[in-house]
């Protein structure tokens, strides 16, 4: 069996050489079948025409012979009672012989010649008998010459009949032999064809089974790599969130708290130093301002990385906070209408809802030119539906699918949810994410 060539994926399921072998085998099989059928038909028709010729030969000879034979029997009686009528009948019998086919083999011709001879003999002895005028003499001549000669004529006729029967039998036997030969030949040929057909079929089955197995293996590999990719993607996203969480904690706990403590210390320092020393107090004020803006910067970074309200207040409050933050910093006013989410909602789903809202609202603020935006979060049936809508300039979702939307889709899909983007240029945009609830 041909193994697929390297890079067999491009060759189709079967290798090129395997295909060629299969096509050639099936072609040969088909040609053999046609040839066998053709020769069988030709042989059969030749046997049939030989048979027809033989039987017509036989009949064309038998017919005059039977006529002659039956008339000869009549003649046998007539020659004893009315020899004059008998002479007329005999000439009819001789005329009957003229109907016997002309094409004859040598043996046959000899037999015919013999018949002619004995018939002439009969004519002669009957004429001699009729020439006698004595009744007794005529009776003697009849018994001694005419009747024996008549018997010889009958014998000669029967000889020809016998020969004719034999020849027909021989031809038939020959035809039987050739038809038996044909049968045997066909039998062998058909057996050969059946054998090779079976072999080819078996080969094909084995080949296809092998190919199928390979396809299954390849498919399994493909599915596995796809799963692995999704798994990797999920873990990357998880790792990203964890990383953000730890950086956020680090910033908040270490940097933020140290700065906070520094602020408190500076406050106490300022209180302990003479209030009328303008230079020192001014310097401390500047230091405090610097520390305060650092605290604010650290807090903002930490919040971007990990919204602590998600932990402190829950998902709905975090979304409301996000909406207010966007409203404060941009020209768009965001309204939130949210049901409380189920208490057992997975952390990953909460995070996903939060991030999708964040991304969508940022897109709205940055690109849409919207003045109003609405966030709704509802449970309906067995799913949780998040919708972010704006009254901005919209876009064609078929054409522009930014990385942001792809990222949202990926996040949602990893949690077995679905994301739909609906927008018509000039009529705002709407993003809907649905998550199944167990």
């Amino acid at each position: 069996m041909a193994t697929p060539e390297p890079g067999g994926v491009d060759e189709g399921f079967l290798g090129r050489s395997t295909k060629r072998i299969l096509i050639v085998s099936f072609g040969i099989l088909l040609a053999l079948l046609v040839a066998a059928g053709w020769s069988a038909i030709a042989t059969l028709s030749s046997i049939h025409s030989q048979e027809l010729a033989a039987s017509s030969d036989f009949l064309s000879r038998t017919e005059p012979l039977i006529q002659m034979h039956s008339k000869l029997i009549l003649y046998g009686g007539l020659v004893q009672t009315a020899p004059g009528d008998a002479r007329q009948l005999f000439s009819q019998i001789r005329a009957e012989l003229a109907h016997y086919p002309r094409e004859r083999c040598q043996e046959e011709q000899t037999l015919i010649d013999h018949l002619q001879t004995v018939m002439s003999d009969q004519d002669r002895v009957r004429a001699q008998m009729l020439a006698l005028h004595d009744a007794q003499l005529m009776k003697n001549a009849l018994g001694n010459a005419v009747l024996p000669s008549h018997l010889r004529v009958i014998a000669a006729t029967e000889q020809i009949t016998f020969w004719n029967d034999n020849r027909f039998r021989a031809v038939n036997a020959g035809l039987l032999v050739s038809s038996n030969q044909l049968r045997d030949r066909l039998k062998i040929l058909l057996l050969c064809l059946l054998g090779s057909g079976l072999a080819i079929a078996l080969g094909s089955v084995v080949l296809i089974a092998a190919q199928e197995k390979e396809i299954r293996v390849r498919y399994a590999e493909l599915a596995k790599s796809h799963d692995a990719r999704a798994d990797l993607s999920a873990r990357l996203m998880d790792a990203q969130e964890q990383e953000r969480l730890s950086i956020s904690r680090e910033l908040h706990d270490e940097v933020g708290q140290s700065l906070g403590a520094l602020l408190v210390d500076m406050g106490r320092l300022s209180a302990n130093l003479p209030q009328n020393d303008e230079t020192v107090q001014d310097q401390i004020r500047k230091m405090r301002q610097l520390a305060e803006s650092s605290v604010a910067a650290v807090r903002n970074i930490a919040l971007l990385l990990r919204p602590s309200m998600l932990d402190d207040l829950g998902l709905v409050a975090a979304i409301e906070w996000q909406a207010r933050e966007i409203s404060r910093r941009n020209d768009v006013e965001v309204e939130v209408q949210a049901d409380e989410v189920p208490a057992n909602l997975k952390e990953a789903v909460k995070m996903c809802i939060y991030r999708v809202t964040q991304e969508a609202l940022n897109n709205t603020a940055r690109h849409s030119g919207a003045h109003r935006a609405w966030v709704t979060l509802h449970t309906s049936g067995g799913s949780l539906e998040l919708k972010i809508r704006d009254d901005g300039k919209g876009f064609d979702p078929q054409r522009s699918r930014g990385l942001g939307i792809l990222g949202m889709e990926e996040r949602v899909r990893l949690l077995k949810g679905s994301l739909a983007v609906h927008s018509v240029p000039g009529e705002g945009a709407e993003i809907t994410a649905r998550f199944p609830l167990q």
Partner: protein
Amino acid sequence: MNPTRVLLADDHKLIRSGLRLIVEQHPEFTVVGEADDGRQAVALAESLKPDVVVMDIGMPSLNGIEAAAQITKAHPDIAIVMLSMHSDEGYVLRALKAGARGYLLKDSAEADLSRAIDAVREGKSFFSPVVSKVLLEDYMRKLARSGAEDSFDLLSSREREILQLVAEGNSSKESAGLLNLSVHTVETHRANLMQKLNLRGMPELILYAVRKGLIR
């Protein structure tokens, strides 16, 4: 008057010691305990029965809002000052709903903590001035963008007075005494103003008052 007994709850030791210094500068305050997470704060509030708990919102195991809710549910007489990094109304409203009467930003804790402890000890409310400012800005911006009218304009001057007194922590009876009105009249005004402002419950009323700068 006995010294005010204060319990400090914050997961950072540095902050706790800073807070302790501020509190103990005040002659009438004394720190009776320190908790470094929400669960410990609830347990210590139970065993020490402090007058005031100064509580950070962001704490591990049980956050400050949950801890405050548990404490005020078991001991309504314990006053709570919430410490937070956030001036967002989501935090303020949830802190109020959890029963906190004071809400301080950590940045300004040093300047305002003593006043906040005093206020909540007397049953009054206290909010960092920055919080009022942020809430007011949010509110005004929203009004301007949505084109809605300020429902505050719908209130009569009497209703405004009562709104402020109630939000500051005065009962209907105390407000009635201060305004020389009957308790019934005060309660009618109060119900009317809450309907006009579409407010549900005290936390929303206080938040509204803070937003309007009626409490500081």
